[in-house]
Each structure stands twice: as structure tokens, then as C-alpha cells.
């Protein structure tokens, strides 16, 4: 393995990712100064703010801070071990997806650089990206405290933190990558297991991270139940805060330098051991990645399976309308295409259906946090949580999926498809999911507050139409500001950034406008019912439904016209 090749690749990868100047070419779309400097300015602003905050506050409480750190040098162990855990979990599938999509870097793999060096470089880039957020907060924090600290070597805590954080993340990323490659090897060629496993893992990840937020929130407001208490106890009993963990070493070395704690040979030994472990694991990861690619054991299912001479007979395809609904062929074809292309990828369908829980939970949390303190309005909070589901389903199925049509737009344009109807089909494809979510939430509300049953039918109807309005607004924004070359990929490759299907203000409008309509409409209805009687809720319902329907027809028409006129260079 040549270090000069590695350094060359790293330099090129980083300079390429952080291009400040526009390319000179005439055909290249010029990006504004703001969008070019934003990725640099955000870390600088956040880092500057943290540094300013530390320098402003720490001198006043330095004695307290010093004595607290001195007495609890290992206090950061749990935090740093959590960083290790996050980088581990976040990297589980990255190595496997990188190896699985090597066609995207074939131009590099054919060069006279060892494959393992190329995979190593990609892993280092992932470590770099994983460390940015922790560096952004940690470096100014340590820098500020070391400036305030009167100890001679306090400033060394900054490089110590940087080096040890990198070691920590290297161990996490490499271990995650190895586990992911192992899992990918085990399920290679087994589509059903892969799909079910992916769905379960995605659901666990979404619900797990949501509960994690909940635990922070509930802890900060009351002494109520913490869903992670048991997990922390378990982690503790497993030695997560143990002096033998990498997190403990990071904590004791970096904080020790800050308060002038004496150096111990055990700490030096720990640092050396973890350094060797990190280097060993990252090298092992690149070796296994190379083997995975070179031997072809991650080859796609189609490549691995013998072709069989089976002539299949297919009947005439005829997408049917939903029972009781009379929809045109284009609408039903669009609905069928939307739902089929989503449901074939377990990761996508799970993220679409459960993803909104990440937003909704912030509305449920006050109910959980304050419990009886919120009296009878807990149910309203839970009802409020329904809005993100209704709006997000519209956004995903009509907005994102319209963008992911990509080159298929060419077929639609060539076939002179009525694209207004096609967009409407996309909007309608979200509706069944919104209805199901509404019914589930309604049942929960019924358990908490049975007296609210009178409002629930109105809420279900309102959310159904809200979903349609949201979908049409999102489709219109997608037609205006969608990146029609974006991949529908939740699986990130090493060093690749997430491609957002909607860009800039289009993304903001597609998300926020339906929220505003939903909360104003649904809660306006309920408020009217609470203040003046339930009949007022049902009197306002038709107005809200009509308003949403008007938005739906208006924006699906606009979106359809825009997509019909979209230039081929946008999607080809």
C-alpha cells in the first residue's frame, strides 16, 4: 500500500468536495456565492458561537469547573463511548453499500492504485465526515476551556481531543463497516431476508432515535420515566463507563490536560493500544472491502443466479381503480407505479411510513413530559402528531416520487400523457396511508380520552384532504425545484453526501406550507368545537375540505403543466 497514493486520493477527494469557485464552463450551471460558502460558514459560525460562549461563561465559574473535572476525570466516558456507538451504528451499511456500488468508482479502480488503498481512502473520508460535527462542538469547547485554564499544558488538550476523537471514530466506523460487510455476505442473493431485515433495522433505527430524543426531553423537564434508563443501566453493567473503554481514555486524557492532572503510564498505554486497534481495524476493513469486491461475493442477485429457460405468460395489465372510485387509467397507472416502486425497497417504504414519527414525536413529547400537568389537552397533542404524518405522506409520495421519476419523465412526455392526471395519481397514492395513520392515531386518542370521539371522524376526513393538498403543493414544488437526476437512495456510500430531491426554498415551502395549513385548519376546527360546540367543528369541516380540494386541483394542474414542459436536460 502506497502512502503517497493514499495522500493523493485524500487530497483530491477533499478538494473536490469543497469546491469554492464555480467551474468556468459555459454549459455548467453557476452556483451562487452563498450556496458555495455555506458548508464552510456553518461550522465556523457554530464553532465561533461555542467558543464565544465558553470564553464568556467559563471564567466566572472556572474554580467550579476545575474542581468538578478534577474529581470526575472519567465523566466524559459515557459521552465519548456514545460517540463511538453512533459512529459504529451509522457506518454499519456504508462499507457494504460502497462495495456494492463500485461501478460508480470504476474509473478509479482501474488505475494502478491498489484497491485496498482506494477502499481505505473512502473509509478515512467517512471518518472525516463522522468527526466534523463532534469537532465543530468539541474543538471550540476545549479551546475555550484551555484558554481560561491557568495550567501550562492546557492547550494540549485540543490536539489530544482531536487525535483521540479520530481514533474513537476510526474504531467505530471500521467495526461498523466490518459488521455490515459480514451481514451483506450472509444475505447476499437472498432478497426476501434482505428486505425483511432492512425493514426491521430501519424501523428499529427510526423508533430508537425517536425514543432517544424523548429520553432527553423527559429528563430535562421532570423526573418521569425515562425509556433509556434500563438501557443505560445495562450499558453500565456491561462496562460502558468502564475505565477499559476507549471513551474513558479520551475523557481522562483530554480533560486531564485541561486541569493539569498528572500523566499516568496506564493512560499512555491505553492511548497506544487504541491507536493500534484503530489502525488495525481500518486496515482490516479496507482488506475485507477489497476481498468483497474482488471476489464478487456482493454481486447482485441477478448476476448470481443461473438463467432459466422459463417462458412466462403475462396477462394484459390493467390497473384497477379503488373500489367505489372512478379513476382514469393514467391516475391508476401513476398510483400503481408510485406504490410499487416504493414498496419494492424495504428501506424506502419503512422510511416513508415511519419517518414522520421523527417530527411527530416533538408534539407528543409535551404530553409525555408533563403528563397530568397538561390535564385534558394531552389528547390534542397526540392529535397534533397526526398532521406531520398526513403532510409527510403527501410530500414523499407526490413530491419526492415525482422527482424520482427521473428519466421516466421522457416516456411520459413522449407518450403525451396528461401529466396533471399523472401527478394526481401520485397525490392519491399517499391517501390510503394517511387514512390508516389517522385511524391508528384516533384509536390511541380514544383510549386516552374517550370523550373526544366526536371530533375523530372530522379529523380523519380533514387529514385525508390535508394529505392531498400537501401532496399537490409538494408536487408543484418538485416540478419547480426538484433535482430530477437525484437517486432514491437512503443507503449512503462512503464519502457521498445525501442527495436531496427538492432543493432550496422549494424544499422549505413543500414542508412548511402544508404544516401551516394543517395546524390552522384541524385545530381551528377543534377549537371551534371546544369553544362553541361540536357542531361548529362539522360546520367548518366542509370549508376546510373544500379549501384543501381547491389547493389539490390548483397545484396538481400547475405541477402537471410544469412537468410537461420540463427540459430533457433536467432529467437526462
Amino acid at each position: 500500500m502506497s502512502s503517497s497514493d493514499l495522500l493523493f486520493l485524500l487530497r483530491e477527494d477533499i478538494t473536490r468536495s469543497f469546491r469554492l469557485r464555480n467551474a468556468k464552463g459555459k454549459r455548467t450551471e453557476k452556483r451562487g456565492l452563498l450556496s458555495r460558502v455555506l458548508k464552510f460558514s456553518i461550522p465556523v459560525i457554530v464553532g465561533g458561537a461555542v467558543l464565544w460562549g465558553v470564553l464568556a461563561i467559563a471564567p466566572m465559574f472556572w474554580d467550579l469547573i476545575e474542581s468538578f473535572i478534577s474529581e470526575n476525570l472519567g465523566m466524559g466516558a459515557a459521552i465519548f463511548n456514545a460517540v463511538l456507538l453512533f459512529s459504529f451504528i451509522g457506518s454499519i451499511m456504508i462499507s457494504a453499500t460502497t462495495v456494492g456500488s463500485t461501478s460508480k468508482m470504476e474509473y478509479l479502480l482501474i488505475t494502478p492504485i491498489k484497491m485496498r488503498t482506494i477502499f481505505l481512502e473512502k473509509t478515512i473520508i467517512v471518518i472525516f465526515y463522522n468527526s466534523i460535527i463532534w469537532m465543530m462542538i468539541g474543538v471550540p469547547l476545549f479551546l475555550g476551556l484551555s484558554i481560561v485554564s491557568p495550567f501550562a499544558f492546557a492547550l494540549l488538550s485540543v490536539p489530544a481531543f482531536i487525535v483521540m476523537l479520530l481514533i474513537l471514530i476510526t474504531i467505530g466506523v471500521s467495526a461498523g463497516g466490518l459488521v455490515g460487510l459480514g451481514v451483506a455476505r450472509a444475505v447476499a442473493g437472498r432478497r426476501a431476508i434482505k428486505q425483511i431485515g432492512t425493514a426491521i433495522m430501519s424501523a428499529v433505527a427510526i423508533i430508537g432515535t425517536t425514543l432517544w430524543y424523548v429520553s432527553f426531553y423527559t429528563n430535562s423537564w421532570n423526573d418521569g420515566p425515562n425509556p433509556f434508563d434500563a438501557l443505560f443501566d445495562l450499558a453500565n453493567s456491561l462496562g460502558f463507563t468502564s475505565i477499559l473503554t476507549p471513551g474513558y481514555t479520551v475523557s481522562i486524557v483530554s480533560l486531564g490536560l485541561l486541569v493539569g492532572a498528572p500523566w499516568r503510564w496506564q493512560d499512555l498505554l491505553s492511548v497506544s493500544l487504541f491507536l493500534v486497534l484503530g489502525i488495525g481495524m481500518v486496515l482490516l476493513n479496507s482488506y475485507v472491502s477489497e476481498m468483497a469486491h474482488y471476489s464478487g461475493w456482493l454481486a447482485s442477485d441477478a448476476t448470481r443466479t443461473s438463467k432459466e429457460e422459463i417462458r412466462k405468460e403475462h396477462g394484459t395489465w390493467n390497473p384497477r381503480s379503488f373500489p367505489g372510485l372512478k379513476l382514469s387509467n393514467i391516475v391508476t397507472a401513476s398510483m400503481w407505479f408510485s406504490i410499487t416502486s416504493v414498496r419494492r425497497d424495504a428501506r424506502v417504504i419503512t422510511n416513508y411510513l415511519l419517518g414522520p414519527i421523527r417530527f411527530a414525536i416533538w408534539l407528543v413529547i409535551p404530553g409525555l413530559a408533563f403528563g397530568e400537568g397538561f390535564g385534558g389537552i394531552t389528547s390534542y397533542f397526540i392529535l397534533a402528531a397526526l398532521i406531520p404524518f398526513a403532510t409527510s405522506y403527501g410530500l414523499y409520495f407526490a413530491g419526492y416520487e415525482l422527482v424520482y421519476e427521473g428519466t421516466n419523465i421522457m416516456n411520459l412526455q413522449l407518450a403525451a400523457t396528461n401529466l396533471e392526471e399523472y401527478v394526481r395519481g401520485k397525490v392519491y397514492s399517499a391517501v390510503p396511508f394517511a387514512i390508516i395513520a389517522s385511524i391508528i392515531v384516533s384509536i390511541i386518542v380514544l383510549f386516552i380520552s374517550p370523550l373526544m370521539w366526536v371530533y375523530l371522524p372530522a379529523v380523519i376526513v380533514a387529514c385525508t384532504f390535508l394529505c392531498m393538498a400537501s401532496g399537490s403543493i409538494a408536487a408543484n414544488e418538485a416540478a419547480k425545484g426538484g433535482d430530477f437526476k437525484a437517486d432514491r437512495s437512503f443507503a449512503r456510500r462512503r464519502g457521498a453526501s445525501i442527495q436531496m430531491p427538492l432543493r432550496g426554498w422549494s424544499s422549505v415551502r413543500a414542508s412548511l406550507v402544508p404544516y401551516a395549513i394543517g395546524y390552522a385548519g384541524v385545530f381551528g376546527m377543534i377549537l371551534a368545537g371546544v369553544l362553541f360546540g361540536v357542531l361548529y367543528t362539522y360546520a367548518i369541516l366542509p370549508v376546510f375540505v373544500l379549501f384543501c380540494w381547491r389547493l389539490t386541483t390548483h397545484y396538481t394542474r400547475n405541477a402537471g403543466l410544469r412537468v410537461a414542459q420540463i427540459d430533457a436536460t433536467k432529467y437526462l
Partner: protein
Amino acid sequence: MIEAMGLTKVFNEFIAVRNLSFQVNPGEIYGLLGPNGSGKSTTMRMLLGLLQPTAGSARISGHDIREEIVDAKRVMGYVPEEPVLPERLTGWEYINYISDIWRVPRGPEREEDIQEIMNLLDISDAGDDLIETYSKGMSRKISLVAALIHKPTVLILDELQAGIDPRGAATMKEILNGLRGRGATILMSTHILEIAERMCDRIGIINEGEMIAEGTMTELRTKAKGQSSLEEIFLSLTGGPDMQLIAQYLGESV
């Protein structure tokens, strides 16, 4: 020189390439023909060191592809069927990047070489554009520039002329003829049988991973007993279209 000796690749239960042996000499263009999924690209990927052969071996200019793959790659140039290039680089940046990887010395000579090939392929005007703005044909052309910039002695070309305009295709043909004249070893796969017939010194036809015929056009004609064009030879060896199904389709549709 390319020497493939009993190359075999098995994916799980599927034999993609079966005991394939052939040799391409310096100053020779060798055409690898076969139906879709016959194993052409897998063979090329093994020769390029991208895939490990399950059995057999190969040598590129004397370098074993298992033991000395980096040395083998140093003398090779490759244009894939569908080049996926770094979209956030301009054409010039990409070529300079690849040149640096191949350790082509920086300086005016390199610049002139790049400019010369880009001019030949008529893409010098797009050199400052991001690759994401390139058409399929332009991507192939810039891939060819990248494949030639380190002056390889062995060229592997997968469907090089697909998607290229007639002028570009003619230029490419001239470039390949020129390289052959200078002693380069060229292995190319193509579906355009006319190109194979006109350009290739020898042709290998593979079907379901096996070499079913190999030789010059004259030798192939002899083997195919009276078939005169390469298309006829190819179809007689790999199986022609199902005329009954075509007639049935036309009868129903027209």
C-alpha cells in the same frame, strides 16, 4: 500482449465465464463478440483486475493479473461500456486527476497531449464544463482521453462506439488504427458487427461464457461453412431470431 488461459468465473451457482483462453498480440485488434450476457464484460473485468477469476489465469504484457495487477494496470487503458465519472469535476480536471494517478509528468507536454486528443475527439470546448453536464457520447470520449493519456500498450474497450456520433466514431477508428500501427494490443467488444468485421484482425465469439469460435474473418467463414458476412456467421453460431414469433407479433400488430 494479452494472454488468457482457462479463465473461469463462477458467481454463486452461475458460471459466467467458462474456461476461456485466447491471446491478443501486439499490433493487433481483437474483437470479442457475443450476445448480451454472454460473459464479455466479465472477461474484461477479470483482465482489468476488477474481478477475481475463479479458475485460470491471464497475463497482461507479461504481468500476471493475480500477482502483479498494479503493474498490469500501469500498461492498460480501459473504456467501460457505460462510464461513470466524477460528476463534480470538469473534463480538464478529470483528465489531470487521472494523469496524476498514472504519474504522467506535469508540464506543457502533458497539456499538449491532452489538448491534442480532446481536439481530435471534438470535446475541447467542453473541457471546462462539469462532467455532470456531459452527454453519453461526451462521457465516452472523455473516458477515451483518460484511457490514452498515459500512453498504454494494452487497450480494453467495452462497446466503445455505442452512442458516439459518426464523426466521433470515425475519429476513434482512426485513433485505434494508429495505435495498432504503433504496436498497441487492443481488445474490444462490440455489437456493431460491421465495425468488428472492418477493424478487427481476429475475432472471438463467446456464448454462455464459452468461446465457440475464434480466428480471422477468413477462418470464421471456413468454420461457418459458406456464410459470408460476420452477421451470418454470428447468427449461425449463436442462434438467430425466432422468425415464427416475429411473424406472429407482426401479424397481430399490423
